[in-house]
């Protein structure tokens, strides 16, 4: 029988995500997929899965899940913990960065990530039905729906059970490349974008982040353009002068002038920002954007190479301030 996770409580905004739907923009299908592919890959690597195997993306309240039918393994990546409730009634707090096995009947209660989004990987990757080559949940495009109580998420059998030091992205301003419509903005507002703090409004989701801050004024060319292709990271500025950063589920095309685009290396970091948080930008050039992306790949490969396996380095985990109160670590 196929091991599955049954959804007891869906959490808030939790959905299945994988590598997404590249190549379908011509049909108006957004790229979708995990907002932070690196963190998804990290969760999967703890289980021996391919980097883009489907997992649960957890932006706010975590789900409560139950293992059914057969043993399976789960692993959390991100700043998050979970409670493993065994059938015999015992409970263990499970930190991220450690794959554990769940027996049929065990419950797994994922807490709300302390910051940013988190991923819950499962053995073999979640095996829900694919739509247009992906299992990504993209309700705003009519593709799939958010998790609901009673859903069954088929998983593979238990494979690798690894643990690791946490993977973390670099910090610092979000780096931007100018354009493509820099001529639709005043010189002053282009300077302002990299000088002032912007904060995230409450209107943020997988389609985009609406920012609030200094008004970015348009030049005589105005806010509207002939509708053209957009991409995650593009920063549109409608007539009200408040920027919107597009993310993976954004429409494929848009008719607002774009003042800048976030570089690929910083895209995954945007996913971890929450309403009210401040964001700072910095202009870079193309060579710097490509070097940052190469650097990110190198850092991730380093992390993967240093992954601990087969023994617990609690000292290192504590040092990274990840465990706030594991009461019975020996049981793990």
């Amino acid at each position: 029988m196929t091991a599955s996770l049954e959804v007891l409580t869906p959490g808030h905004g939790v959905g299945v995500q994988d590598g997404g739907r590249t190549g379908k923009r011509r049909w108006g299908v957004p790229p979708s997929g995990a907002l932070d592919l690196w963190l998804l890959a990290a969760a999967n690597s703890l289980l021996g899965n391919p980097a883009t195997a489907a997992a649960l993306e957890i932006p706010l309240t975590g789900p409560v899940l139950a293992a059914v039918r057969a043993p399976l393994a789960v692993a959390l990546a991100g700043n998050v913990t979970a409670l493993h409730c065994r059938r015999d009634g015992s409970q263990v707090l499970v930190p991220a960065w450690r794959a554990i096995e769940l027996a049929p009947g065990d419950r797994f209660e994922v807490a709300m990530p302390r910051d940013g989004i988190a991923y819950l990987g499962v053995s073999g990757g979640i095996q829900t039905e694919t739509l247009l080559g992906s299992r990504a949940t993209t309700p705003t495009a009519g593709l799939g729906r958010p998790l609901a109580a009673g859903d069954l998420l088929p998983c593979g059998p238990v494979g690798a059970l690894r643990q690791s030091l946490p993977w973390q992205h670099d910090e610092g301003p979000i780096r931007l490349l100018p354009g493509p419509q820099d001529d639709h903005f005043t010189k002053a507002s282009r300077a302002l974008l990299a000088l002032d703090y912007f904060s995230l409004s409450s209107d943020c989701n997988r389609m985009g982040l609406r920012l609030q801050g200094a008004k970015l004024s348009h030049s005589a060319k105005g806010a509207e353009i002939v509708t053209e292709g957009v991409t995650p990271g593009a920063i549109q500025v409608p007539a009200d002068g408040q920027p919107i950063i597009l993310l993976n589920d954004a429409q494929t095309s848009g008719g607002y002038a774009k003042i800048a685009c976030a570089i690929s290396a910083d895209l995954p970091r945007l996913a971890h920002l929450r309403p009210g948080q401040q964001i700072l930008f910095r202009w870079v050039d193309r060579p710097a954007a490509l070097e940052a992306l190469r650097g990110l790949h190198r850092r991730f490969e380093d992390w993967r190479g240093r992954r601990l396996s087969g023994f617990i380095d609690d000292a290192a985990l504590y040092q990274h301030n990840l465990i706030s109160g594991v009461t019975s670590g020996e049981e793990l």
Partner: protein
Amino acid sequence: MRFRWLGDAALTLDFPEPGLAPALAAAIDTLIAVGKLPGALECLAALRSVTLYFDPLASDPDSWRGTLSELAAHATRAPVRGRHWRIPVCCDSEFAPDLMTLAARRGMDADAFLAPLLATTVTVRMIGFLPGFAYMGAVPRRCQAPRLATPRTRVAAGSVAIAGPLCAIYPCTSPGGWNLIGRTPLALFDARRDEQPCLLAPGDQVAWQRVDRAEFDRLAATS
């Protein structure tokens, strides 16, 4: 032809003549398929531009300038040969919440407003906004209307809508700011048809066939 960067993983090619984009996009798709643009992933035809997406670490887009300019220069002005469609639309008030306002603004009744609109065959200009959402034009000038000042939070799937010189059909239930003048029972997008999930493609010609509510319900039950 202009060549504009869209971040570090995409670029947009512009051209002044509308109607060229689908042909150029098809030509670029062919180049990608035969490996002539290493690292290129996909392209998207918009109204007056094509955006080309690529893997920034596996491609050298600067080296594509010559090939792409040549392609655009040779791309035929003749529009892509599209298919012809006759799409049923029911304009009952339940499906057309903006129809009375649009007609009244012109001092007409609903049928007088709809007659020139539904008699005009429109061309699919691009697919965008939502999966299978076809931007079609041109709507006769006397029927044109600006977008709603406040977009609706929920527009039903199948809604036939107009905005400026364009018309469209909402393929799935979504927020939307266009004026709703009817509804079709046809499915515009089916994610299960992996090879071609969209009913309409750029270059297709769409004529309207007005149907009453009974016919709408009959078609909706069979489609």
